[in-house]
Every structure is written in C-alpha cells, then in structure tokens.
C-alpha cells in the first residue's frame, strides 16, 4: 500500500525545480522539442480522426485525402445512425456488456477481496494463489473450450455470456486490488461498526466500501476499458449483427458491400468507439496508476 500512496497524485515525483541542474539551457530546449514532437506524433491520429469524422462524406472519401475539412458536417454520423441496426443499437450493446462486466466484477471482487483480507480459513492461501495464477494464463489460449462451454449452455450470441467471460478475466486482478484495499483498513474501524450493531454485509457496504473506494474505482476503470475495447472474444461469441459490440461493428463498417468502404462512416464509427474510453481514462488516470502501482500490470 505504501507504493500506491506514493503515486496517488498525478504530479511528477521528482521536484521539477532542481531535477536537472547540470543540463544546459540548449540541451533542455532540445529535449523539450523532442518531447513535444513525439507527443504530437502520438496524439495527431486522434485529433485527425475526430476532425475527419465531421467532414462531408465526399471529403471523407476523397483521394488524395482532404486534410482540413472545408465545412463541418454531421453527414457521416447520420449515415452511421442508419448503419446496420443503427449506431445506438451498437452503443447499447457495448454499454450493456460493459455495465454487466463492471457490476459483476465489482460485486465479486469486493466480496472476494474482503474475504481474503479478513477471514482465516483452511486453504485460503491456496485459493488466493490459484486466483493469482490464472492471471498468468492468457485468455487467448483457452478460447476454444470457452466457446464450446458457452455454446453448450446457449450463451453464445448473448451479451450476458460475453460479460461472463469478461468478468472472469477481470476477477483475478480485481480481487487482488480489493484485497489490498481492505487489508490497508485497520480492523478497529470495522469492529466498531460491528459492536454498534451492523451486520457483516452491512458493515462491508456502509463502513468498509466507502473507505475502499479508490480501489473500487481502479477495478471499475480496468473493467470498463477491458469490456469496452475487447475484440477477440466478441468476434468469436457474437455472430448475429444485432448483438455486435462497437469493435465488431467496426469490422462490418470497414468491409463494405462489393469491396467498397465508406471511409466517412468508418471515421465516425472509430470516433464513437474510442472517445468514451479516452474520456474516462483522462478523468480517472490516477486510479489507473494506482492499479499499476499495486503490482497488477495489465494492458
């Protein structure tokens, strides 16, 4: 927990004023320039993609490309609104899958993390190590049986089935985070609540959870990014167009009929798929850092 605290603020850890006293102004100017050039190269695709989504369809599909749009147009978004089941349908699917993943992961990891942090029982360490060990086994190597199991129980082409898969893969990391959060809370606080007549569940919900909120936000953020962005499982499990999540919708948007692609449609679809992840990430950066700093590296 000590490490987590040390990165709690998003501020640079080394004092800026005396970080590089020996370097000359010229060197520093050069370094700053290099840093800015790289930053522009990294961010330019996003800016250009979002700007391009507001081009007219004609400009979006022009070859060679029109770098700066001559007018702002919602034409691409209107096309997108009527694409397939309509963009709102796909957004709804993504929201459902992401929402179920977040709720499921949060509930199970709060209960699990609390249990591991507070209770002593035989085999506890074996259970915990088992949960952590599953972090080492990549999803990609067990897709086949997951597909077979889910089709046996009728959960392919189901947003619930897909969420179950995501919850499973978020859980080891999330239980780890929540266990660390609860372990950092002094048992005395909890005992006070119990003495005052709170039940165990009530104590978790009313007393412990509020204190463990940073850990919970971290869990939610990682669950969001995982479910919102995931491609392979969705590709395998969802075969009917009406169930597609946004990343799979992009696949249909990028392979138009007769080999033609409406690039304007794709630009708008890309913007819709990536902006929520970027915004949420920007808003919750420090929780992302906390997740990483607690040793649970996840991309």
């Amino acid at each position, binding site marked *: 927990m000590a*490490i987590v605290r*040390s*990165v709690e603020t*998003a501020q*640079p*850890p*080394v004092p*800026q004023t005396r970080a*590089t006293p*020996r370097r000359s102004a010229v060197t*520093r100017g050069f370094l*700053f320039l290099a*840093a800015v050039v*790289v*930053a522009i190269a*990294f*961010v330019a*695709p996003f800016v250009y993609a979002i700007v391009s989504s507001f081009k007219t369809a004609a400009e979006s*599909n022009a070859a*060679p*490309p029109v770098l700066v749009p001559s007018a702002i147009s919602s034409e691409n978004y209107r096309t997108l609104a009527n694409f397939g089941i309509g963009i709102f349908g796909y957004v709804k699917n993504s929201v459902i899958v992401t929402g179920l993943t977040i709720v499921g992961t949060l509930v*199970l990891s709060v*209960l*699990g993390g609390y*249990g*591991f942090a507070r209770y002593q029982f035989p085999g506890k360490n074996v*259970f915990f190590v*088992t949960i952590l060990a*599953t972090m080492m086994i990549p999803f*990609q190597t*067990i*897709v*086949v*049986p997951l597909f*077979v*199991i889910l089709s046996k129980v009728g959960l392919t082409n189901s947003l619930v089935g897909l969420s179950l898969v995501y919850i*499973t893969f978020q*859980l080891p990391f999330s239980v780890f985070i929540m266990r660390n959060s609860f372990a950092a809370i002094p048992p005395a606080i909890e005992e006070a609540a119990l003495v005052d007549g709170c039940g165990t569940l009530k104590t978790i919900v009313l007393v412990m959870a509020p204190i463990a909120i940073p850990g919970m936000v971290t869990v939610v953020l990682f669950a969001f*990014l995982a479910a919102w*962005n*995931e*491609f*392979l499982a969705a*590709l395998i499990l969802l075969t009917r167009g009406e169930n597609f999540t*946004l*990343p799979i919708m*992009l*696949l249909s948007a990028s392979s138009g009929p007769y080999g033609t692609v409406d*690039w304007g449609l*794709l630009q708008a679809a*890309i913007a819709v*798929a990536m902006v929520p*992840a*970027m915004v949420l*990430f*920007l808003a919750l*950066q420090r929780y992302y850092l906390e997740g*990483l*700093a607690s040793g649970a590296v996840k*991309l």
Partner: protein
Amino acid sequence: MLPSVLTVAALFLAPLAMTGWISLHDWPLLGKITFAGLENYVRAADDSTFSSSFGFTTRYVIVSGVITFVLGFALALLVRGGLPGTAVLRTAYFLPVSIGWAVASFLWVWLLNSQVGAATELLRSIGAVGSEFEWFTRADRAFVVLVALTVWKSAGFAMIVFLIGMQSVLKDLYEAARVDGASWWQEIRYVMLPLIRPTLVLVSLFLVTAFYLGFDQFFILTRGGPGTETASVVYWIYNNAFVRFHLGYASALSLIFLALLIVLNGLQVRLLRKDVTQ
C-alpha cells in the same frame, strides 16, 4: 469470496483442463466428435504454418519489444521532471494505451490506406513512398506497420511502469549521486538501473507476453497476409478453430503455445536475473 473463487474455477481452470481434453479429439464444430489420441500433436509438429507463424511472431515480439522498451524508458526519463508541461506530455504518450487494439488497428487501416490515408499521403508528399504505394501487399512493409502500431500503442504503458519504478527509488540516492559529481549518464547507469531492475524485468516480461498474444492487429490490418506470411500464432489458432472449425487441432496448438510461452518467460527471468549478478 466463494463466488469469486467459483467463477474463476468454472470459467478458467475448467476450460484449461478442457483444452487438454478437446485437443485429444477430432472435434469439428458440427458433426461427430471422435477420439484421436495424440494425432493433433503429431500434426502440429508437421504444420509448417504453425512453426512459421511462431517464427514471425517471435521476430515481431523482439523488434516491437526492444523499440517499445527503449522508447518507453527514454520517454520516462524525459517526463520525469525538469521539462515544462510534463503532465500534459505524459498524458499524450499514454493516450494510445487507453483505446483498444481493435479500434487502434481500424484507425491505422484508414490512415495507411493507399488512396484516402493521410499518413501514406504525407509520406508520398515528401517523396518517401511512390504514388502507387501499398502497405499490405508485401510482408516486409506490413511488418513495419505492425511494429509501428505496436510501439505507438504500448510505449506510453512502458513509460508509466518505468516511471513508477523510478520514483520508488529514494530521491536522496539520486541527490547523493549528484553531490558526488556523478554525470547524468552515471546517475542512470549506476544508481537508477541497478535499483529499478525488478521494474525492467517486469516490463520486459509484460511486453513479451502481451506481444506474443497479439491478435487484433494481425486480424484487422493484414488478415495474416499476404498468404500466411504475417499470421501471428493466435491468429493461426483462431483460423484453425473458427474459420476451418478444427477445434481439436486448435486446442492442441493452444497448449503447445502456452507451454512455449511458459518456457520463454522462464528463460527471460533467468537471463535477466543473471544480469543482476554481473
């Protein structure tokens, strides 16, 4: 806590065992499942596409991994402090990590398109590429794209983990080195690097594993092509399972791949540990 253990067991350990079970069968998507013993494993040994995909993926992992590692480290040094606007710079480098591999790949498909792509047009305008230039018809060019996308998508992540490692070293140690007249490079080489060794190991393990498991970028940008020249291992497993519907064979490939990954991770840890003692 029991629910989380049960969920993990049901949807994680059971599938792992099942992968083994399925791999011993001729298991089409539809139709009769028959026991095949080790036939799938024998077949895998002769599968030249599997071995070439492993070779291709290994090259991709090494090239992307080294560049991401070095760039991530350089960026971490840059934004460690001393430059104005480090918080903004850091966020800029990190932004590509927040979007998915699939979305990033579609973004690049468009940017690199030979007709409407802005990146290709920019290169054309400075004369770096010809007027009829195509990225994805040749494996060597596709490789460049895959590496560039991967570095762009992951360098910020490496940077952040390096930063966390760097700040875990007591500030006093850097200061002490400076007081003793250590140069910038000496400070990094003799104070920082030995102390953040665990972080270096963590990042390299992480990058190697994540890159070996790559799928989205291969599926979306190249479809493994031309031919199967740019098929990653996971792409080839996917192809066998969900395009050719040989689930048994794909399971055998999955387990072989998992074993290879575990061996590789072990080797890496040993190699990096050995380095420490020198």
